[in-house]
């Protein structure tokens, strides 16, 4: 029989048995063996794996004091060198889910495969992708047994270095990674079969799922426009003339930030569009169509807005996967927040 797999389990203060919300500021601690909900995990693993240690951290500590908590967790994982990390399940708990994602990413960076369990709407899911496998769970711990069964199955495979199949077969949330594989049957036959099933009122599983877009809480309105600093972002593919930064015209993986501190308008002799999704010649003659600097300068001079933020952000928004867009969007938003910008106009072609 194979040696049991060495597993480290990450839990929050509640599932680690320290306490509820009042203990959410608990520091990172390490316990021998399985603790709290980890006992059920040990049962689910049976003889195939052993929870050697449990890492516990308060949800507030893991989120508000990441700079303290995550290095401590990394040090523990480096020392322990488990064959697989299991985090949670966090169910629908946002802070716990985000913590599981962080810890999973640290494990991944150390070469330790990581599995977490979360409700599909948990904000930690997006954070965990694509390097941490997330098993979908129910909203509450009523789903503990099922969640642990699915998580251990994946963890055992990963810990043994086995290659996982597609998400729909293995039972983890799709990570947005496509691989070529042979479906055995030709497309038209599969399409007709699907149609027949549909006509009979039988359940069908689409091969091209359309994901519902993320819901974002609207930002609060600006109270005083006359003192507001307004920034501009464009996905119209604005580049400096001649594209010296060598930005791509589609499927961008990064954006560029330029300064317009000294400019009152964008001129076609200094700027142009490089975007594979529309005819760029009109914008090339007047780049303000995709980044309305000239209008904002006039409104600034008239005292309608407080000022124009000096940084502008540009990329071609075409063929960009949602996950990459989210990454760039988060980064731009963070930048604007750090600069205490009040509002932002995003021009999308």
């Amino acid at each position, binding site marked *: 029989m194979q040696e049991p797999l060495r597993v480290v389990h990450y839990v929050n203060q509640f599932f680690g048995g320290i306490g509820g919300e009042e203990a959410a500021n608990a520091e990172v601690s390490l316990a021998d063996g399985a603790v709290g909900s980890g006992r059920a995990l040990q049962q689910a693993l049976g003889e195939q794996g052993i929870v050697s240690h449990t890492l516990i951290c308060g949800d507030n500590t893991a989120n508000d004091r990441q700079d303290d908590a995550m290095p401590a967790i990394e040090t523990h994982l480096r020392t322990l060198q488990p064959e697989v990390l299991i985090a949670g399940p966090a169910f629908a708990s946002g802070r716990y889910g985000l913590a599981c994602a962080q810890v999973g990413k640290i494990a991944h960076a150390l070469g330790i495969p990581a599995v977490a369990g979360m409700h599909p709407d948990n904000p930690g899911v997006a954070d965990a992708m694509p390097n941490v496998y997330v098993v979908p769970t129910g909203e509450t711990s009523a789903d503990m047994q099922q969640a642990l069964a699915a998580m251990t199955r994946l963890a055992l495979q990963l810990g043994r270095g086995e290659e996982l199949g597609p998400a729909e077969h293995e039972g983890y949330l799709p990570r947005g990674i496509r691989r070529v594989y042979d479906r055995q049957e030709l497309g038209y036959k599969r399409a007709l079969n699907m149609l027949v099933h549909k006509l009979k009122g039988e359940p069908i599983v689409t091969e091209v799922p359309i994901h519902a*877009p*993320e*819901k*974002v809480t*609207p*930002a*609060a*309105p*600006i*109270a005083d*426009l006359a003192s507001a600093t*307004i920034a501009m972002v464009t996905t*119209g593919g604005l580049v400096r003339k001649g594209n010296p930064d060598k930005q791509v015209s589609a499927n961008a993986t990064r954006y560029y930030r330029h300064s317009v501190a000294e400019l009152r308008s964008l001129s076609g002799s200094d700027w142009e569009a490089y975007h594979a*999704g*529309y*005819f*760029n*010649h*009109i*914008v090339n*003659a*007047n780049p*303000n*169509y*995709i980044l*309305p600097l000239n*209008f*904002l300068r*006039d*409104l600034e001079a008239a005292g*309608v*807005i407080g000022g124009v933020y000096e940084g502008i952000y540009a990329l071609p928004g075409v063929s960009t996967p949602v996950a990459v867009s989210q990454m760039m969007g988060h980064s731009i938003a963070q930048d604007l927040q750090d600069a205490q910008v009040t*509002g*932002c*106009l*995003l*021009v*999308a*072609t």
Partner: protein
Amino acid sequence: MISAIYNLALTTGANRVVRGSRIEHVCGDPNLGAEKDYAYGMRIVQTALDAICTPVTEPTLFDPLERAAELEVSHVS
């Protein structure tokens, strides 16, 4: 967000969507001639500023054309 494909922006969850002119010239319309082009672009940008000063609870369209009855805007292009 100012976009000529404003329906797409709304269905994909952008919360404050301003109807832009056309994909090739979102903030204005060169076919209107310099003066009206500027007025149209300015109306779009002002609508966008109105939008970020307006509370919303879900994806909401702000249409500069609705707010600009006095503005003659053609859609030649």
